[in-house]
């Protein structure tokens, strides 16, 4: 009882700290289609990566949404799921919130704040500042899941199929805009 109350207060404090003005969100589509959009922007695939020891190879869009929103807390092997996110404002994070969670930053934070407070969500996402950090975290934590631009993926992590599609497939729809400064 006492532990549940502490978790809720912690989640509340985390939510207040990370609360920021919510950017606009296109919530009508789970997957954006760069070919059909009116804006001609350069994009690259965003890979969903897990620890190499994780038995999961394939996730559906719905399962992925549940994982990223904290609705699903354990993998099939019993390992607790640890979600790894980049810092707010990051292109990859924006793409994930838009295409997987169908939320903007504010909605996402409120969702976790509420979930942690009510006990529906066990742990908040881990915030890491760089792709290298994401890679290392997932390498060290067997239950971790995160996302990386395809160019940042290496052998230390495992890429998960989404709806049976790998990031290299043409129909793979989880993509991130290439920053102009890259």
């Amino acid at each position, binding site marked *: 009882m006492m532990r549940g109350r502490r978790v809720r207060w912690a989640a509340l404090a985390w939510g207040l700290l990370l609360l920021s003005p919510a950017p606009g969100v296109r919530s009508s589509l789970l997957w954006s289609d760069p070919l059909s959009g009116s804006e001609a922007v350069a994009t690259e695939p965003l890979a969903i990566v897990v620890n190499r020891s994780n038995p999961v190879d394939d996730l559906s869009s719905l399962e992925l949404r549940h994982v990223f929103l904290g609705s699903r807390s354990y993998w099939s092997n019993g390992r*607790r799921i640890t979600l790894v996110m980049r810092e707010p404002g990051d292109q990859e994070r924006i793409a994930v919130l838009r295409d997987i969670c169908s939320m903007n930053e504010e909605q996402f934070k409120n969702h976790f704040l509420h979930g942690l407070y009510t006990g529906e969500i066990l742990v908040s996402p881990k915030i*890491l*500042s760089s792709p290298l*950090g994401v890679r290392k975290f997932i390498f060290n934590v067997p239950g971790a899941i995160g996302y990386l631009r395809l160019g940042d993926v290496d052998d230390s992590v495992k890429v998960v199929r989404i709806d049976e599609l790998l990031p290299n497939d043409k129909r793979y729809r989880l993509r991130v805009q290439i920053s102009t400064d890259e």
Partner: protein
Amino acid sequence: MNNVKKASKNVVSQLPPQGMAVLDRLLNCASRHSSKILLVAVCCGIAVIGVLVVRDLQSTSEEVQRLFRESIGGMQRAGALQYDAQETRRAILYALTTADSNLQLVYADQTRAADHRVSNSIEDYARQANTQDEIVLAAQLRQDWTAYLAVRDEVLASILEGSIHDAVTRDLAGGVPAFERVRKDLDEVKRLYAEEAERSARNLERTSRSSARRLAGILSFTFLLLSAGVWAIQRSQMLGRMQFAKLQMEFVASVSHELRTPLAVIRSAADNLADGIVQTGEALRRYGLVLRHQSRRMTELVDQILTFASTEDGVEPLPLQSIAIDQIVRAVLSHTESAERESGFRIEVRVDQGLPRALGNLNGITQVLTNLIVNAIKYGGDDRLITLHASATENPREGLDEILIAVTDRGMGIDTAEIHHVFEPFYRSPRVKNAQIHGTGLGLSVARRIAESMGGRISVSSQIARGSTFTLHLKTATEAASQLSAIDAPPARLMST
């Protein structure tokens, strides 16, 4: 005379006993050729010993370096292994102290880098393990370290997940005991290295003692070799001097005998003349001939000794002339006429046609050839025939024509073993001495020195019981003149007679 004989005997009696005969023969031989041979042999021996010493020192140095690498290096490796193992654990404990995931990842990197170094060091240790204890320990260490890393990974995952309570629980339950086992293994590694170092130190001490013994042995041997070498050189020189003294004694004895015989004849003849025993003209003429012959014999002997004495410290080069061969032959025959007549020998002269003129000194050439003919008369056989043959040939060594004047007898000949000694001063062959042939042993020595002073030489060939040929080699006047001109030598000595 008796005193001289006694002195000679004393010298002989000082020669070494029978037990040293073989060694002395060798030393005598070395002394005859050169004591430098002995010196070179000693130097070679010392050089070989020096090489042995250097190799021994190098071997010892390599052994010391090996021991250092194995023991001290092993202790250093054990220390580094222990430090890295602690570093692996330290980074994990630091990760527990922060909630910042980025910082936790830095500590995760540190612990993984340290465990990578530990794993490599364990593999190195396993590869280098020699003894059964080391092999077993390496396997145990590898197993315990792997077990600890499994717990460490779980603890690290819990920390990164943010489950600090889980991390601490796991570490206390599995990490601490696993690391304690690793620590004990590492202590065991250090203990084995310490034992190895102790063994190495004992081996080093043993090696040092052995090396010192070897060095002492080698130095002792060197000292003995040096002493033996010095002794051998001194002994060979002493034997040489004794031999020379013996020859001189024999020479004095021989000269005394040669002088006393004519003196006795002269004194006897003088007594007879003084006492009026000889009165008739014919007897007086015969006595006169005897006195002349004996006095001439004494004069020749004294002249020979004086000539040898004057050439003892080297002969001044004689003034050279261009001389016709006929002139040489005439002068020699004139000098040896009386000896030839008195001995009943006949000298057969053969001069090849068209011989060039010889380069030499007429007096010198005459003296050399006279000595050779007198020797031929002395040692000639019953045929009482001596051949004097003048010819020319090309000197193979210098590529020049040279005049050869050979004196051949048909006498007893010279033994092959003695033929190289006949030109040594005072040397007289045992066969000659046994045959009661008197002489000083100086004739050939003097002849060779005079020949060399004219730029020539004397060669000899002989066969036992068949006779000997002594040949005087002289340069031809033409060849010598062109050679002198070519080297721009002063032509003052080349005089035409």
